[in-house]
């Protein structure tokens, strides 16, 4: 029964990992940018939420209404300035620039805030409570909520990308940006919109992580970015639903590892990640390799 519980908890935590991963996957799929500052930006989202809650006293669960638009705006601006400038100099430059951005963010947080951990604690019974499925299986409302948010985000992204004018332009630019220009599409603006959406999901990831656990200035790279990468690689690059599958596989592997030995939790997750890289480098969701 403990194993069943582990698997269920792993699936649920996979929703959080999918939230980490979908923005990373979107930015890679559209602009071919591997955003190494991805995790740090999620942490910034968390800090902004802490600040917004302290100042405006909005309920934690509603803080996303302010944080997501702020992060989306930051995403658009960063893409149109720093990241686009890096892209103009070549794909590899974006690695250096986002790595630099990551260092700047972490040290900026250490310098101007502090190294303490923060969390988005909520007294709400809905969030701290849980329900029992059986004597050994207990499901936390919060994890269920995060999983539901992840599914909603992915569904929303899918409808947006396939059904809206901007979504269509994002797919066209991802396919062939020069051909899109010849149809009058300003790919820089479309990149900005895609980055805004990615940063919006990053904000949700930061808030969700802050409610689930606690974050400090270095959480972005040592946890969120690594898990996001693992989920993207396991699920398959450039596939949206692959990030959920990847997140769930990673979560389940970690929980099974924890069942074997509490200290093997992270190791088990990375072993699965390595196994996928070796045996199925295109990821579990088989899609034609993207150019």
């Amino acid at each position, binding site marked *: 029964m403990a194993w069943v519980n582990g698997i269920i908890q792993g699936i649920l935590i996979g929703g959080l990992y999918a939230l980490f991963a979908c923005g990373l996957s979107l930015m890679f799929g559209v602009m071919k940018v591997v955003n190494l500052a991805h995790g740090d930006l999620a942490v910034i989202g968390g800090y902004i939420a802490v600040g917004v809650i302290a100042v405006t006293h909005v309920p934690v669960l509603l803080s996303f209404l302010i944080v997501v638009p702020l992060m989306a705006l930051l995403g658009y601006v960063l893409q149109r300035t720093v990241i686009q400038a890096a892209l103009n100099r070549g794909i590899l430059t974006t690695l250096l620039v986002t790595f630099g951005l990551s260092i700047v963010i972490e040290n900026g947080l250490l310098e101007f805030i502090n190294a303490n951990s923060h969390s988005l604690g909520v007294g709400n019974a809905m969030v701290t409570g849980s329900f029992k499925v059986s004597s050994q299986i207990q499901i936390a409302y919060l994890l269920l909520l995060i999983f539901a948010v992840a599914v909603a985000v992915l569904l929303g992204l899918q409808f947006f990308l396939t059904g809206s004018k901007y979504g*269509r332009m994002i*797919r066209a630019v*991802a396919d062939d940006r*020069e*051909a899109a220009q*010849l*149809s009058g*599409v*300003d790919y820089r603006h479309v990149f900005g919109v895609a980055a805004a959406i990615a940063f919006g999901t990053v904000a949700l990831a930061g808030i969700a992580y802050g409610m689930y656990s606690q974050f400090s200035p270095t959480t972005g790279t040592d946890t969120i970015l690594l898990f996001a990468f693992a989920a993207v690689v396991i699920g398959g690059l450039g596939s949206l639903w692959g990030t959920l599958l990847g997140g769930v596989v990673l979560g389940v592997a970690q929980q099974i590892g924890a069942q074997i030995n509490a200290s093997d939790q992270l190791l088990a997750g990375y072993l699965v990640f390595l196994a996928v890289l070796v045996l199925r480098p295109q990821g579990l969701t088989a899609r034609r390799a993207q150019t």
Partner: protein
Amino acid sequence: MNGSPLLEVSELTVHHGQLRALDQVSFRVSPGEVYAIIGANGAGKSTLLRTIAGLHRPSSGSIRYDGKDVTGTRPERRAAAGIVMVPEGRRLFPSLTLEENLQIGASHARRGQWTIPRVYELFPWMHDRKNQRTEQMSGGEQQSVAIGRALVANPRVLLLDELSLGLAPVVVQRIYGMLPQILATGLTVVIVEQDVSQALRVASHIHCLLEGRSTLQGTPGDVTAEQVEAAYFGLARQEDTALWHG
């Protein structure tokens, strides 16, 4: 229309790195013309067309469109202003359906008579297959979609780059057969074509390039086959031809 050109290219020089792809090329295209650029592989035809579309920056020279200098204008602005290119190799969006490809073409369109239903009238087979992805289609079908995607932008100047490339002759005939219907809507066309006889059939004006330089300009009626051959290959100079025939 008065005699003022719709498109005017002046002393255009374009470099690819160290290589000079175009050297001081000038010409004017009047409204309603079919202006054909011919030349061998590597003569700079596609570079010329891509520079007019805005995909290459010239090292010197200028491009004027409708009386305005567009030399530094971004390709997406030129497209929205009415200079629209059907690129070499078609360059459709493979993960989009046929209709979505056309919708992208129409997304920044000028006002005009070309709409997606109008394209379906021109190519009736498209209507039944509008939800298919274009990568499953034949080369000729893809070329038609690429033309349709350009038409729905309602261009004033349509740039056609190597329409016949990789297509069976019968398909090429069919696509060129559409040209009069397209021209009837008042478009001006600049085509790049390796197939000289095809170009001579449809063009009102031809312009031959050789290694980036203009070697011949004129109407198909003005130029002789020998002149075209000489300009195209650059082998037979005036005195050589005299020698051969003498």
